[in-house]
């Protein structure tokens, strides 16, 4: 019965979301108080129905209701409870329902925290969000219904894809989606602003905390995905430039640009139309990214459903949502730009450069992702563009961008003098150059141009961010006052410095190697000794595994026992590698069990990854910076 209740609740949510969209937008257009008053209750009702639908699907999974096709295809009796819940979003249908749930949650939050905004403005925002959710629910019900039954129902399910049976992947999609969908709020604010008779200059202030919130979830979501790929796939990298990864990275880059341009628009009232365009683009790229991959237009190892009917719906939806917004922008934007002067050397200039470089980076990724498709459409052959292209292409915008970070942070609004800036930045740069050369050359024993550039810039960013963080603290007659916007900004940039340092060191000094081991063999990799003690069979809840016991020695001192596994999941028969990782703050020692080479001899992949943790740590620090910036009091007035 629960699947039917869920199905029915979703149909009700569809109807209510349509009412929410039309009543709020029509009410705002006609300035009809009654309809405007309805917008919030309608939004809450819609969210409640979506929540009921989602809860019913979760219940179907937890209660092993294999008469539901989606449950039968993605779960089984022996699956641990945590993964029964995460299996809800383990495939296309459920992840779409999760997307809908998250969009209605954002809508509810907007309803609750927008009460001090003008009614007409917030009503339009709620209306736009209502129409967006209408589109998604329609898509779910007509092309991807997770509540569909099968008869006769199987006794046991087909199990969740073993790759997804992992805590990292249980939480990665929801958090990533919270980020993607969060940009819908910035999009709705931008549409509402463009529909206004006279653009309210407070719009930038209102939309800032929402944009930062979406961005911080996207940051954590991407970092989690990267961390998962690192330890679960065992390929030894943390970023593969796969279309799905690119699809999440593009909105992140534009979202980052948006956060910076919103700062200028709020403080100085310039770049208004540009900021509107970025708000629309961030959400457009979130949509393009997720749905192009889902529709099978771009091929990826992540793509889970390819169905032309879905693809057509997606394209129509994209054209209305993105095309409509861009058309509105084209009509309205030219009235918005004010002439406000600023000096060639000023914070405005640095933030403008930041935006230009981030947009260039996004366009390069978009080109790299779409080029194979374009060439094919025009019958110019099939090509694959891989990591090497992206890695080189990214250096072009990223190196100047990273150099400008410190200058942007420490320059003044309107006009600054080069002497003043030089005075502030020379000692951090001096120290950074020294440390940036000494660490790689003497600690790791090698140097190279890119390596030295990377380590110097990252340390320069770290030092400047700390100085900037110090300046956010004011001791006002014995009372501490912290400027949370400045503190958040500094911490986010500190995170960026930590991230770049990690990337630089691990890409220069990481070691990956496959070695053949017999029992008792001892092999040295990157200064550590690995000894294979034993190989034995063990049993898990829904898999069988072979587990190796490997001692790791630093010199003659035993530092750890690593136990990598090769699992065979019983239902889907697919083998999985569970790597064992000795994680320290400054390095990872990574061991994955390969194939049997016969005669008690095994192939084992060993990796030495210095500073790899700093990559994810840097992302978390960036997100923390965003969190602190949101908590600034001025957003709650």
């Amino acid at each position, binding site marked *: 019965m629960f699947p039917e209740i869920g199905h029915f609740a979703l149909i009700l949510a569809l109807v209510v979301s349509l009412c929410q969209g039309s009543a709020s937008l029509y009410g705002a257009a006609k300035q009809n108080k009654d309809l405007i008053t309805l917008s919030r209750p309608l939004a809450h009702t819609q969210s409640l129905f979506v929540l009921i639908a989602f809860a019913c699907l979760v219940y179907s999974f937890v209660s092993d209701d294999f008469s539901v096709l989606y449950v039968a295809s993605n779960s089984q009796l022996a699956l641990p409870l945590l993964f029964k819940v995460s299996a809800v979003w383990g495939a296309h249908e459920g992840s779409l329902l999760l997307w809908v749930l998250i969009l209605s949650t954002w809508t509810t939050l907007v309803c609750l925290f927008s009460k001090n905004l003008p009614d007409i403005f917030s009503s339009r925002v709620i209306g736009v969000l209502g129409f967006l959710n209408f589109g998604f629910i329609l898509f779910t019900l007509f092309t991807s219904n997770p509540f569909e039954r099968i008869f006769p129902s199987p006794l046991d399910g087909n199990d969740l894809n073993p790759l997804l049976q992992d805590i990292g992947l249980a939480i990665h999609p929801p958090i990533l989606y919270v980020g993607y969908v969060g940009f819908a709020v910035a999009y709705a604010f931008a549409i509402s602003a463009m529909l206004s008779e006279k653009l309210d200059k407070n719009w930038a202030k209102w939309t800032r905390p929402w944009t930062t919130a979406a961005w911080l979830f996207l940051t954590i979501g991407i970092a989690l995905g990267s961390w998962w790929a690192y330890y679960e796939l065992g390929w030894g990298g943390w970023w593969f430039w796969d279309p799905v990864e690119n699809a999440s990275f593009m909105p992140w880059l534009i979202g980052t640009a948006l956060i910076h341009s919103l700062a200028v628009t709020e403080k100085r009232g310039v770049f208004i139309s540009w900021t509107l365009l970025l708000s629309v683009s961030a959400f457009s790229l979130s949509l393009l990214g997720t749905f192009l991959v889902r529709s099978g237009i771009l091929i990826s190892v992540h793509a889970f459903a390819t169905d032309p009917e879905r693809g057509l719906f997606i394209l129509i939806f994209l054209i209305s949502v*993105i095309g409509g917004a*861009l058309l509105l922008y084209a009509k309205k934007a*030219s009235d918005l730009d004010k002439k406000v002067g600023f000096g060639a050397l000023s914070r405005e200039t640095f933030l403008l450069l930041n935006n230009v470089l981030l947009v260039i980076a996004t366009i390069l990724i978009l080109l790299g992702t779409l080029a*194979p498709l374009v060439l094919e*459409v025009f019958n110019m052959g099939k090509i694959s563009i891989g990591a090497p292209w992206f890695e080189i292409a990214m250096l072009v915008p990223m190196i100047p961008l990273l150099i400008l970070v410190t200058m942007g942070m420490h320059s003044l609004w309107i006009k600054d003098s080069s002497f003043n800036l030089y005075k502030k930045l020379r000692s951090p740069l001096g120290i950074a150059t020294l440390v940036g050369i000494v660490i790689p050359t003497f600690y790791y024993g090698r140097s190279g141009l890119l390596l030295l550039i990377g380590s110097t810039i990252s340390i320069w960013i770290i030092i400047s961010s700390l100085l900037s963080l110090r300046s956010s603290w004011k001791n006002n007659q014995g009372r501490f006052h912290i400027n949370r916007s400045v503190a958040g900004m500094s911490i986010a940039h500190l995170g960026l410095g930590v991230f770049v340092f990690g990337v630089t060191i691990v890409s220069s000094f990481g070691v990956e190697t496959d070695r053949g081991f017999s029992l008792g063999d001892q092999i040295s990799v990157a200064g550590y000794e690995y000894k294979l003690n034993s190989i034995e069979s063990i049993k898990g809840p829904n898999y069988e595994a072979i587990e190796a016991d490997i001692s790791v020695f630093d010199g003659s001192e035993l530092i750890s026992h690593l136990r990598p596994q090769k699992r065979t999941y019983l239902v889907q028969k697919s*083998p999985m590698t569970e790597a064992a990782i000795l994680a320290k703050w400054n390095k990872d020692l990574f061991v994955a069990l390969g*194939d049997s080479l016969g005669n008690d001899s095994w192939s084992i992949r060993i990796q030495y990854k210095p500073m790899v943790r700093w990559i994810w740590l840097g992302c978390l620090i960036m997100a923390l910076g965003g969190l602190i910036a949101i908590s600034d009091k001025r957003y709650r007035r």
Partner: protein
Amino acid sequence: MKKHYLPILFFLAIMPIFFIGMDRDKSVLPSPLIGEKIPQFSLPSLINSELQIDSSELLNNTFLFNVWATWCVGCLEEHDFLMKLSESNEIPIVGLNWRDNHNDALAWLRDYGNPYTIIAEDVSGRVAIDWGVYGAPESFLVNSNGIIIHKHLGPLDDDIWERDFSRAIINDAN
């Protein structure tokens, strides 16, 4: 004034690509391996586990490298074609039994017939990763120098064979 129309023009310019992209044939995948030497491997034979099949032994002959498994529906679909191809003695077929259950695989060959000259058993799927296998069935055409000259994703049939594989063999001979 006009510059604000650029974003929508850019958007409208790329949308048709997606429309066309939706209908295209996704079975012919670009593979970085085309034109490259085959990835080396050494795997036990499915039929006789004592025997090791080494990729170097496969050279000196044009052959079809076919990735299959009993859990794969598309493999059953192309099986009749493979049987016909093997009876015609046109080309030796090397099988890679991918992530499969040993006994299921033997039972399948007993029930449906064995079109393969030899079959390597890749239980862990590691060799398939080296070959860049996306899913089964997948077929690679390898020339006598051990160079991959064509790759096909999905079940094979007469049309695909004539259109893509026969032509690739002729082109390669020239």
